[in-house]
């Protein structure tokens, strides 16, 4: 039999073998990785991000087939990854948990120029000041966008802050080119995580989005609830007892007011409550009967 039994076409290039080996090793040694969509993410931004996170995150852009092969080699179930491994993907390996990585990426949102046809994410203001641009055809762009200018020396000066787009507006070709010439990069670009793998658990990209304000509120409410319970049972900690005393005092005053119970120490409060109620009613009445001329302060 001749050696032609092995078709040449099936031979795997060495670099692919090396890459799979490299990736396999990463999948084995890092407990957490994410697969992110690189489509449309500016290369220069990726370089910046990589540099910023170099101590915490290992970046790798690779071919989908090699990634799958390496996942299999590392003993990871690929069934959930097969359908997301399309297009150009970035792998990020880390020892943080997947949510921490996601939050970190949120912090380093990159900014880039708007392209024609894109939707403005925010109000776009062209600031007043010297643009450093020489007068020329660009002046017609300024006038088209109704940006007031004057010439000073050999450069164009914008005479006042001008709003050129509101959130939701479509970016015109003129505006896109102007923003680029003025070096105004406003469009936020965020790496879009498709899925994360964290100690054997697969978490989809949309699950990774955390609302920190919501967490703050939860912490605050949990604490408030604890204070409510603590003050109701008069938990003997000064911080809580003050709330208990406060509560008891207010309840006592409210009861005194409702009962019309006058003593030197309740009189002011009782009368104040009565007067406040009367004034509130007077204000409401004067809406319907202004002719009454009620003495609403």
């Amino acid at each position, binding site marked *: 039999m001749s050696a032609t039994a092995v078709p040449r076409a099936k031979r795997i290039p060495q670099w692919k073998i090396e890459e799979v080996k490299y990736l396999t090793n990463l999948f084995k040694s890092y407990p957490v990785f994410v697969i992110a969509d690189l489509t449309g993410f500016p290369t220069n931004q990726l370089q910046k991000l990589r540099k910023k996170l170099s101590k915490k995150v290992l970046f790798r852009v690779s071919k989908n087939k090699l990634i799958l092969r390496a996942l299999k080699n590392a003993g990871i179930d690929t069934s959930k990854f097969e359908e997301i491994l399309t297009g150009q993907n970035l792998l990020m390996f880390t020892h943080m948990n997947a949510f921490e990585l996601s939050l970190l990426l949120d912090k380093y949102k990159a900014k880039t120029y708007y392209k024609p046809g894109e939707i403005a994410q925010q109000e776009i203001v062209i600031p007043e000041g010297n643009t450093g641009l020489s007068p020329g055809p660009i002046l017609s762009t300024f006038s088209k966008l109704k940006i007031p200018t004057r010439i000073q020396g050999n450069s164009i000066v914008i005479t006042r802050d001008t709003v050129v787009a509101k959130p939701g507006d479509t970016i015109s070709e003129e505006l896109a080119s102007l923003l680029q010439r003025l070096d105004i990069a406003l469009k936020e670009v965020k790496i879009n995580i498709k899925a994360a793998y964290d100690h054997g658990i697969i978490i989809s990209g949309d699950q990774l989005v955390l609302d920190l304000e919501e967490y703050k509120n939860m912490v605050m409410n949990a604490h408030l609830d604890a204070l409510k319970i603590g003050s109701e049972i008069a938990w003997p900690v000064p911080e809580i007892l003050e709330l208990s005393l406060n509560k008891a005092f207010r309840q006592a005053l409210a009861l005194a007011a409702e009962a019309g119970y006058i003593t030197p120490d309740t009189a002011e409060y009782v009368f104040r*409550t*009565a007067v*406040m*109620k*009367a*004034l*509130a*009613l*007077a204000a*409401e*009445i*004067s*809406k*319907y*009967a202004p*002719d*009454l001329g*009620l*003495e609403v302060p």
Partner: protein
Amino acid sequence: MEYIYASLLLYKAGKEINEENIKKVLEAAGIQVDEVRVKSLVAALKNIDIAKVLEQALAAPVAAVPAAP
């Protein structure tokens, strides 16, 4: 304000706030009653949920607190 106090008195007593009752209360306090004002008061009160207004009377100042910084 006398008219308001009279109305609140009737309200708290669970009595109907009508012209006759208001007049009775005001007169008992020795106040000379202005018929037109009483009419106007009673008409205005028909549009108002007194219980709610009284409840909010105390809650109001809180609402005035500037939103958290």
